[in-house]
């Protein structure tokens, strides 16, 4: 179960995963590291919630996987984005942008008045 302090908005994890592997195919642990790195360690992803999310995304056909060898010479499952996953990422990024803008607007307004 995700810890309270690291809780993400519902659905954001999916978007982060899509973003992370849109740059290059990654294995599960690599995705965790990549998100931490991109967020400059501000976001901590729970290992427990990562895998169900990966399976869910794969089930929806947004990502697909194949087995490969990692930089540590270990067998690992690499995920990459599918065409529909790429579309999904674009759509989610846009709506996320609109949402944050709107929320920022609301919050900014309340402070002034």
């Amino acid at each position: 179960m995700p810890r309270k302090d690291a809780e993400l908005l519902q659905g954001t994890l999916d978007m982060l995963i899509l973003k992370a592997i849109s740059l290059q195919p990654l294995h599960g642990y690599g995705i965790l590291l990549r998100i931490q790195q991109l967020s400059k360690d501000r976001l901590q992803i729970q290992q427990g919630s990562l895998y169900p999310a990966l399976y869910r995304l794969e089930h929806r056909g947004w990502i697909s996987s194949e087995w490969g060898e990692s930089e540590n010479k270990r067998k690992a499952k690499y995920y990459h984005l599918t065409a529909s996953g790429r579309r999904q990422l674009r759509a989610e990024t846009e709506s996320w942008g609109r949402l944050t803008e709107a929320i920022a607007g609301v919050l900014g307004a309340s402070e002034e008045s």
Partner: protein
Amino acid sequence: MSFLAKCRSLAQGIFARKPLENRMDDELRAHIAHYADDLESRGMPRCEAERIARAEFAGLEGLKEECREARGLRLFDEMAQDLRYAARGFRKSPGFAAVATLTLALGIGANTALFSAVKSWVLEPIQFPHPDRLVTIWSHDTKRGSNLGLTAADYYDWCAQAPVFEHIAAWNDGYRFAITGEGDPDLVRGARVTFNFFQMLGAHPVMGRDFTPEDDRPGAAPVIIITDSLWRSRFGASPAAVGGTLKLDDQPVTIVGILGPEFQFALAGRVQVWKPLALTAAERQERGNGFLNSTARLKPGATVARGSAVMNSITQNLERAYPETNRNRGAVVRLLAQEIGMDYANELLAVFGIVGCVLLIACTNVANLMVARATGRQREFAVRLALGAGRGRLVRQVLTENVFLFVAGAVLGLGIALEGAHWLSSLMSFDIRGYIPNFGEARVDLSVCGYALVVAVATGLLFGLAPAFETARLDVNRRLKENARSSSGTATGRLKNCLVVFETALALTVLIAAGLLGNSLVRMFHVNAGFDSRNLGLVRLDMAEAKYPDRRRAEEFLSEVLNRIRSIPGVEQAAASPEIPFGEYYMNMPYAIAGAERAAGTPAETQLTQVASVTPDYFATLGIPLRRGRGFDGRDRDDTLPVTVINETMAKRYWPGAEPVGQHVLIGSKRVPLTVVGVVADVKRADLTEKPMPQIYRPFPQARALNLIVAVRTASDPLAIGSQIRSAIWALDRNQPVSEIQSMDAHIREQHAAAVYVTQVTALFGFVALCLAAIGIYGVTSYSVAARKQEIGIRIALGATTGTVIAMILRQGMLLAAIGLVLGAAGSVVLTRLLSSLLFDIRITDVTTFAAVGALLAATALVASYVPARRAAVADPVKTLHHE
């Protein structure tokens, strides 16, 4: 794309479970290893790093479960669990499982067998390529609304003027060819066709060749194509038969092709020899007499409506061009598949409906059992609910159990369906099956299996609603507090009562259908056919035109044959005629009454009726009573006064109250005058249900024919002396073809095969329905008695007699039966309407049948509820109450 991916992922999850689980393990293990690597590289000892990495994944199983759910697999996991649980449950109560499965197997099996029949006989009656383009074109009398024979001239005009058809072929299946030469002489049914007949159907001989236009020219070397069955019976399936010759009607013909075993042109029945028409130029000009039928193939893309429109304009043009012959002569275009399937569709659908009722009864019985079972398991369910199981989950489990049972029933039912389909075919005689699509063989194929499965799942879910409802409204607290054995409530009882009412109503419907059909059949076979059909044998004797150009020689041969037959021990009388009652055909000839014409002052409109030529002993042989005057005898020769014997209907119609003997009838287009010398009773011609029509008989010497049926009156079973009759004829002429002997009774039954068939099948299902209903009522009464054991015990302890207790229980059971009977009677009126075409002399609301069937069902219900009632009433109250 996304949907497909989902399906693929689900399918993998279900069918490739093991590898999937392994891959999941591998992935998580790889993750831990990578994490440990990381920690190690930061300077942590390896074993410590691994411990920490693993610790972060605490609850690995829970995580895996979440992963599975993410893939949508949880539903399937639970279903598999439910199925396992169901199987275990049924293994624990094998009696219940066996009864339920057998009941369902019976219902689903019967239904599937009937479906296979509907499919083979109505839905897919033809096996030729593109059946949607095959049509029949009937020449049609637009004034009388009946079909006519197509004339050769019209046929060739149609071919020339109707480009909407790829081919139009003409055929006539009314031939009977005598095969002589090697082996016993034989009579086979034959047809003559235009050369393009097989091409039109899209059927090519499997050996040899098709007909060519040259074969169809007058004077061409005679050729035939034969069926697989004749090839096997006559030539032992020898490939040398192709190109060989055969003596057909004393003429050598070459066999050019052999058709495949599956070839069937159902409109023509079991024709075995196909021969080109080869009409002469003069015959092709014939516009007056039509003797052809036509079947055509539409061009790709052309519709029946389009074909119809084209044919309409063609026939209108012909009507204008040839007003004397083609007046009121149109054409009707219909799909061949409809034409073939149509005859049986109504009856088959009625039986299908009846079998549907039987299935519903079977389902109701099982639903009843399941409700009882669900009630018995309430405590178990209550415990599960209390432990946190979702109500939906429990309902789903009950439904799964139900579907499980129904599918098991369907699998067993397929076995019954295989046998049943075979049985349905075997009820029909060999000759009749020639006219039924696919030779009456109902095939159980993949789509039929699919049907059984769909029916099982659908009914399983539908009838699973009853026990599921039972589970859904379970009150956990009450249930857990209550004593497990005491009965629950009225709602369960009400549900079961509804099921019994439903079941009784359905059973009544099926039984009424069976009752009406049986009743009608009995009435039909008690109709006075006008002659004595018992111990009457029929033998077909076709004399060759080439051998008897002089008809007097034929007459001499015939009288010698009749004499020989009469001298066979056991033969009482013998006679011959080209037309015998219930024969393959009878010929209508125009006739007029001399006096009536004079009275009217103008030539009266010509009437048509049957004119039969008969040998002197005909009336005595068939047992047709003479009413007035005399029959025929040796006095009536070809050089004496032309005479006739008419039937009572004719006498009454034209000479009511007057003496018909001595009057004159004019027959044929030449209006030959015949003097009436006698009157005989009316005889049914082709159908026991037909209305009497005028009939005219002529003495054989004055109207000789070559194609005859010999009727033999015997002391006992005529079939026993069939071979002696053939030997007697062959002793006179070894090359004379004679058919097998057939009994008139069997022959009449064959004419009414559809009614007999449907009645047999319905009677069987009526019996099944009655048994199932009895089981259902017995089950429900037993259940309710068991539930009221305590109450009954108290009543008896307080002084109620055995009689009062039984009466109390019976009253309840009979009330349900009565409601069911009333509803069933109403339902029957709707269903039996489909049967009305098969019913003779009986209304679909026949009160006697309704009353008799109702009484039968009521009596059954009485017995079925009496048995458990009595058991409860004689139980020792002390024991019952103590037990509680």
